[in-house]
């Protein structure tokens, strides 16, 4: 599909003065962006105590999503790679601070400072290699790693993404998991090709709360089912696929399991392409005592 802006040019070039103006003068886009950021803020599940939080808007563009954050009384810092978009944000008098920054180069923020992060339709840009020095895997790693560091414990990050393919979603998700995040994908309107929206909901926290994660998922489901009952649009359903970081593999030391373990390890080595002896009846068999 050639209508994807990601396929046309790198973000800092695609969103030039003309495109940035177009983007922000379309009332339709403004409305969609407002809705998306509203939903993202809801998924952030900030404590409802009226205290303004310090949020990060990654790929803030012309500050459309930031407006929603300001309306909800939060302080925010926005970063974007397109100077033209940031100029428009200045024109629109965005209340947050703006930074010209490439998220693939790492965020460079002090640890534990940010109470939450949202990003609307931006993270999929990281999957492009627009310059010879770009390696999507490394850029995703730098991005998620630095994001994990700057978020406070227990803080959430919600990214609305338009992954191009399954492989791309897989790439984004696995990078996030590798950086230490727990979380999953929330899909709004999964059966509609137009209004289908994917949100990546990530939680930053110590491993000890991993045990509580299923509960977090329940909460999500609750809030989503609330949506379902309150929303009157047709075919509105929300499903959740939750992902946990795999548990540390336990060593199988029980009797009789040794052979299985050895076979598994050999299989792993084979998959890596190492030269591994064949499996025979002698594999992992104990030597006789008189040996």
């Amino acid at each position, binding site marked *: 599909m050639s209508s994807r802006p990601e396929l046309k040019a790198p973000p800092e070039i695609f969103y030039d003065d003309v495109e940035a103006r177009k983007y922000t003068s379309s009332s339709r886009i403004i409305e969609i962006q407002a809705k998306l950021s509203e939903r993202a803020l809801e998924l952030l599940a900030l404590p409802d105590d009226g*205290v303004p939080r310090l949020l990060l808007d990654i790929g803030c563009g012309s500050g459309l999503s930031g407006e929603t954050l300001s309306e909800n009384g939060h302080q925010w810092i926005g970063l974007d790679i397109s100077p033209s978009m940031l100029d428009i944000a200045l024109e629109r008098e965005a209340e947050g601070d703006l*930074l*010209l920054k490439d998220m693939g180069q790492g965020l460079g*923020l002090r640890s534990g400072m940010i109470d939450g992060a949202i990003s609307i339709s931006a993270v999929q840009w990281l999957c492009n290699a627009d310059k010879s020095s770009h390696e999507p895997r490394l850029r995703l790693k730098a991005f998620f790693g630095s994001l994990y560091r700057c978020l406070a414990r227990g803080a959430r990050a919600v990214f609305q993404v338009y992954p191009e393919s399954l492989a791309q979603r897989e790439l984004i998700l696995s990078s996030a998991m590798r950086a230490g995040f727990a979380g999953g994908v929330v899909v709004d309107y999964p059966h509609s090709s137009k209004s289908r929206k994917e949100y990546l909901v990530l939680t930053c926290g110590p491993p000890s709360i991993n045990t509580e994660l299923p509960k977090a998922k329940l909460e999500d489901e609750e809030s989503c089912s609330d949506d379902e009952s309150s929303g009157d649009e047709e075919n509105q359903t929300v499903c959740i696929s939750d992902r946990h970081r795999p548990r540390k593999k336990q060593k199988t030391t029980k009797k009789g399991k040794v052979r299985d373990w050895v076979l598994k390890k050999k299989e792993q080595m084979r998959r890596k392409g190492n030269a591994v002896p064949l499996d025979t009846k002698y594999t992992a068999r104990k030597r006789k005592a008189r040996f």
Partner: protein
Amino acid sequence: MRLLTHNMLSSNIKGVTNGFPLLIEVEKVIEKPVDFNPDFLKNMFVKVDWKALVDASRSLGYAELPEETPESSVIDSDDFLRKFHHALLELHLEEGALVCPETERKFPVSKGIPNMLLHEDEV
């Protein structure tokens, strides 16, 4: 750019071990009034790196903040909160530059937006 953001930004050039705090070169400072919210300030007070904030506010020409880290009890004083609020949220660096403390690489600030883009050899 507000000092709140300055207090969070560090230089992430490859090889730099301590890129915080960024030094400030001032050309133009402006002030924009912001709603006063004591709850937010109390939240931020524990997070802010005090020395960086004081140094930054002095370089922007605002010398009302005390030099050493104040006791946490001071947070209840309205007078202190007003000063803290002013320094953190109302002072804007409009034109100037941020300078990496280790490499002295300059990040220009224009129209209040710091350009933090790194060159390819700095990533």
